[in-house]
């Protein structure tokens, strides 16, 4: 076969491949003086996924983000953004970023800041779309005002508009709600969910676990510069449970409870683990059978270990591991 005939075949092959992950990195390391800030982190964010980055202060979350975006030079490791090496600036042409330390030129107005970022991104975005981005973050009325007069919350909203303005395929949000009021937080949550609906990948670093739990498909937990745990919320949080407040529980009823899953009892409260393959029928079936067996059902509460509890558990296990006991990884 000639080289000319081979070329289209290779192109077809490449075109048939699934798109490269939005973020892929392997073995990232960074040391500041004597402090190992990031110690061999590998992670992946698929296109259209919303991934939460969690961990205590100093876990290395912001350093990882900065290494992915070429703002900090890794000591070791590789990173790719949207299929291109992260060290190549063109890899960031479809990436939006809201830094943890959000500051924008105070001598420009909000519309000018957006226009500057559009120009630097090298992507054509009509003025109307730029104004829409400002409206999306609630700054439509302040487009002509100097950024120097903005409150911190307004600057963070502007930063969000900057991150979204140039048609990104990947958005990296580092503590996007740290300066926002409760309404602003809900706005950010809605924006992230809208991005997800549009197939835009999002890497969200946040201390607000509830925020992460509501919007993220997957979570990566960092501790002391390493990945302490990662997975989907279902994988991390494990199986669901149901809590029942019961009276007149006969031995038969107890046997029925045990048949569903592991049971823990605290007086009249029973916590029953649900089967992993539960299709939503286990709880109504159980309640029906308990009533049939003469038990009095006062309350039925679905329960699931919270992400916060799981996070604390992982971090405490990490503490124990660092003391030489070994721990989950």
């Amino acid at each position, binding site marked *: 076969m000639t080289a000319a005939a081979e070329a289209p075949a290779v192109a077809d092959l490449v075109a048939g491949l699934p798109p490269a992950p939005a973020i892929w990195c392997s073995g990232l390391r960074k040391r*500041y003086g004597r402090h190992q800030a990031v110690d061999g982190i590998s992670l992946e964010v698929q296109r259209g996924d919303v991934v939460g980055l969690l961990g205590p202060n100093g876990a290395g979350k912001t350093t990882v983000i*900065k290494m992915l*975006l*070429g*703002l*900090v*030079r890794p000591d070791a490791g590789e990173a790719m953004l949207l299929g291109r090496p992260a060290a190549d*600036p*063109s*890899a*960031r*042409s479809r*990436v939006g*970023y*809201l*830094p943890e*330390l*959000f*500051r*924008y*030129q105070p*001598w*420009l107005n909000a519309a000018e800041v957006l226009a*500057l*970022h559009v*120009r*630097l*991104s*090298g992507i054509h975005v009509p003025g109307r779309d730029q104004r829409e981005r400002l409206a999306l973050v609630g700054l439509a009325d302040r487009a002509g005002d100097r950024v120097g007069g903005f409150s911190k919350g307004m600057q963070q909203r502007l*930063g969000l508009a*900057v991150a979204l303005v140039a048609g990104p395929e990947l958005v990296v949000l580092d503590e996007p709600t740290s300066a926002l009021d409760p309404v602003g937080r809900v706005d950010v949550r809605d924006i992230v969910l809208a991005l997800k609906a549009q197939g835009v990948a999002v890497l969200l670093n946040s201390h607000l676990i509830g925020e992460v739990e509501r919007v993220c498909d997957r979570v990566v937990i960092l501790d002391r510069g390493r990945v302490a745990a990662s997975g989907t919320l279902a994988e991390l949080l494990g199986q669901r449970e149901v809590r029942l407040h019961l009276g007149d529980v006969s031995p038969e009823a107890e046997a029925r409870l045990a048949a569903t899953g592991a049971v823990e009892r605290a007086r009249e409260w029973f916590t029953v683990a649900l089967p992993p393959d539960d299709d939503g029928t286990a709880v109504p079936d159980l309640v029906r059978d308990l009533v049939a067996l003469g038990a009095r059902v006062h309350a039925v509460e679905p329960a699931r270990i919270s992400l916060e509890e799981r996070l604390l558990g992982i971090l405490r296990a990490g503490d124990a591991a660092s003391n030489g006991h070994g721990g989950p990884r």
Partner: protein
Amino acid sequence: MTSARTVVTIAALTLREAVRRRVVLALVGLTVVLLLVSGWGFSRLAAESGTSTLTSGQTRLTASIVLNLVMFGFSLIAALGTAFLAGPTLAGETESGIALAVLARPIRRSAFLAGKWLGLVVFGCGFVVLAGLAQLVVVQVTMDYWPPQPAVALVHLAAQTIVLLTLAVLLSTAISPMASGVVAVGLFGATWIAGVVGGIGASLDNDAVARVGIISRMVLPTDGLWRGAMHAFQDPSAIVEFGGPEVGGFPFLSTAPLTTAYLLWAVAWVMLAWALAANSFVRKDL
């Protein structure tokens, strides 16, 4: 985005910053004051020479000295302006976090730095050339004196500004915004003083002292370029009028034009300092 477009965008942004932060307004104000004061001074000198207390040679000498003195004032304003603008615009943006969102765009850091540098060059050179030209017009109107090589002189002044702002850019990639401005202006002043000391050494035939000036002009070419500018501003007869080559110790007259080798060294110095600045900035963790 292509690097050239990035450079132009960032240069335009830097100029807009200078305008919006009222740096331009402050410089225009200072310049107008200096022009008015020097205009008054020159007109008084013209009045003196009109009453025949000064010969025509003395008039040209006086005009040359005072012109050089006023131009030194402009070069000092340009030095202060660019050095204190370079700090905030580069080190300040890195420190405050403004650079984070900008440098996360698909642009090369070297292109960003080149844009900042170019903006400062346009700003600094624009200032010294326009203010210098205005001053030459003032001298022409009041004393009927026009320097022998005005274009060469203004190019030397602009080159001096470029050297200093390149130094300020280099410093601001490594140290805090305030420190970079202070160190750049401090070195500018120290080199000027070393140049005067070297001139005194030369006029006294003391090689060791004369070497102070030579070495300082090599380490930082601001003073060398300033002497080249003075030589092109002053009347050729001024040196003879003042007392011959022993004038070396006098800070506002220059005995000789710059050599091509020195000008090439100044160009090489700027390129070297820029390369060091780029190397430092590209490696910087933000």
